[in-house]
């Protein structure tokens, strides 16, 4: 296990807090009818996602976030404005609002834009790493992606992870087991005890971690990333937690039993993290309050900025799904 590094914890926490503040804002905007389409939040999953993003190296590693990775995105360097522009319909957004909400990315910056089909990003990240090996730039690189408990039931997840294992790629797959896939509980999704039991069958490293505990996440996810970086092949981390929001903001998650909410994993990782940071002397309450203010303003600005930008104009849209023009004469 890596020793806990204060800078790491502070960075990870800052991404968690910024994500939470942003997502709370998105939720209000949704409820106020300002967002068309779905809003998917990472509430309760920030420690896992934020630690992963923080453990990655911007400009070197690659990271395919999924639907609950606002914290990881932030930690990996995605500007807030990418998020607000995408949700609020600004043509300046990275996807030019051709795609929406959590389907955004910056592939040229190592952060691909997810498609909806669960599991599909697993082989994609493998391919990015595979290419780096061929180009001779793989050394010390890591590629990471997150999936939910539900996504582990997809053929894509299985094929992709197995292929990465065969190719011995430095991939880290974090499975956020938040106990539900939309409304479907774990017992309708898999039949083993802990999904980490799958690691051995793929021949990859396996870790199980309390996803509500920043310290534990920092240490375990940090270790997994380190092992991958050292060339030990794919690493699978299973984080245990509870989704603290609905599946999307349209959903009240009424099917989540009170016992789960009241249970251990019902606790809020942000609150736990604050306790840990303060008690461990990594940050003071005052500092945290200052961050909160800083981020609230930053979020405000990103929202305001996106709101004043142009909506798309179908008459200006380039309706072309191909970059090539025909007849095609290679240059």
């Amino acid at each position: 296990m890596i020793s806990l590094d204060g800078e790491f914890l502070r960075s990870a926490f800052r991404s968690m807090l910024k994500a939470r503040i942003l997502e709370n804002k998105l939720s209000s905007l949704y409820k106020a009818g300002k967002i068309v389409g779905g809003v998917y939040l990472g509430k309760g999953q920030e420690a896992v996602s934020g630690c992963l993003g923080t453990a990655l190296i911007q400009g070197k590693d690659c990271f395919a976030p999924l639907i609950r990775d606002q914290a990881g995105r932030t930690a990996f360097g995605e500007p807030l404005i990418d998020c607000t522009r995408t949700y609020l319909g600004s043509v300046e957004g990275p996807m030019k609002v051709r795609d929406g909400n959590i389907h955004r990315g910056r592939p040229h910056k190592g952060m691909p834009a997810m498609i909806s089909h669960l599991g599909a990003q697993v082989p994609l990240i493998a391919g990015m790493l595979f290419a780096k090996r061929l180009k001779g730039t793989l050394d010390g690189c890591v590629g990471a992606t997150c999936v939910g408990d539900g996504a582990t039931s997809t053929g894509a997840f299985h094929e992709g992870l197995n292929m990465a294992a065969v190719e011995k790629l430095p991939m880290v797959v974090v499975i956020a087991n938040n106990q539900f896939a939309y409304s479907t509980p774990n017992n309708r999704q898999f039949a083993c005890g802990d999904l980490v039991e799958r690691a051995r069958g793929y021949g990859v490293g396996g870790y199980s971690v309390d996803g509500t505990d920043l310290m534990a996440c920092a240490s375990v996810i940090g270790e997994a990333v380190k092992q991958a970086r050292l060339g030990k092949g794919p690493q699978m981390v299973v984080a245990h937690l509870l989704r603290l929001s609905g599946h999307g903001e349209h959903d009240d998650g009424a099917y989540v039993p009170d016992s789960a909410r009241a249970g251990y994993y019902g606790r809020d990782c942000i609150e736990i993290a604050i306790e840990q940071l303060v008690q461990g002397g990594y940050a003071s309450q005052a500092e945290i309050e200052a961050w909160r203010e800083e981020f609230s303003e930053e979020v405000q600005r990103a929202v305001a900025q996106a709101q004043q930008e142009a909506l798309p104009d179908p008459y200006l849209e380039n309706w072309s799904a191909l970059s090539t023009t025909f007849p095609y004469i290679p240059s």
Partner: protein
Amino acid sequence: MSVTYIDAIREAQEDLLREDDRVFLYGQDIASFGGAFKATKGLAEAYPNRVFDSPISEDAMIGLAVGAAIEGMRPIIEMQFADFSSIAFNQIVNQAATHYYRTGMPIPITVRLPSGGTPGSGPFHSQSMEGLYAQYPGLVVVTPATVSDAYHMLIDAVKMDDPVIYCEHKFLYRWLKAKSIKGEHLPIGQARIARPGKHATVVTYSAMVHEAVRAADRLQQDGWEIEVVDLRSVKPLDIDTVLASVARTGRLLAVGEAFPWGGVTAEVVSRVTEEGFHLLDAPPQRLNSRDTPVPYHPKLWAAHRPTPESISEALRKLLSF
């Protein structure tokens, strides 16, 4: 009291569960949650051992259904969105669709595909896949456009011994209302004149029937009487009804919400020109969505698929020949 298109889908499933022990439902979040669109609301409570939440395994969902059908059951599989059936593509086109020709044993499964665009749904929650499945032999592909078709065609799909791809349009779910669920009951394989006319024929299906009717209403203000044919099932395609309409009007516009290359509108135009060339007074035309993924933003989306405006425009062009 009015009922909606989704009510009809729900009620058909309830009636099927009640009347036929061989029917069961399998899909993601369809049991206690009642489905992403509530098409199975309350059914798991009423039929606790007949409605099941599936793991996120579209390929296995269809594999399981085919196996169950071999054993005499009549499964209804709900895809959460039609777009995710791309994962089940192999089991649908190679396992289910080939079984009867290969073994002589038909496979009575019904695959429900919540299809088509709605504002803000984007490239992966908006697709219209009827034209893909129709290309494969061994599948029946239905595309109900009315509340009573949503009901009766689902009932008939499940009664039918062959695999049926049931494309239900998400836009119609709550938007489309009727006085009662069990209106006119036409057989699968027979098209319907949704609106009679004499100057031109629009052949379409699913949500586009309503857009076409709205376009026809507009043109009526200028004295044009447009006939709208609702195909109801795109495979088999009731070419007789289409040809009879074109015989009356001499003009054909085929409209679909799917991508423009190939698909239903190409099949319609080809069949009509092959078999009814002499009936045509003008070049037959097509109107589909644009040849890009379905865009997320409502403003782009509205310009991506056919609308009453673009259908009217296409009709005016057709009428001017």
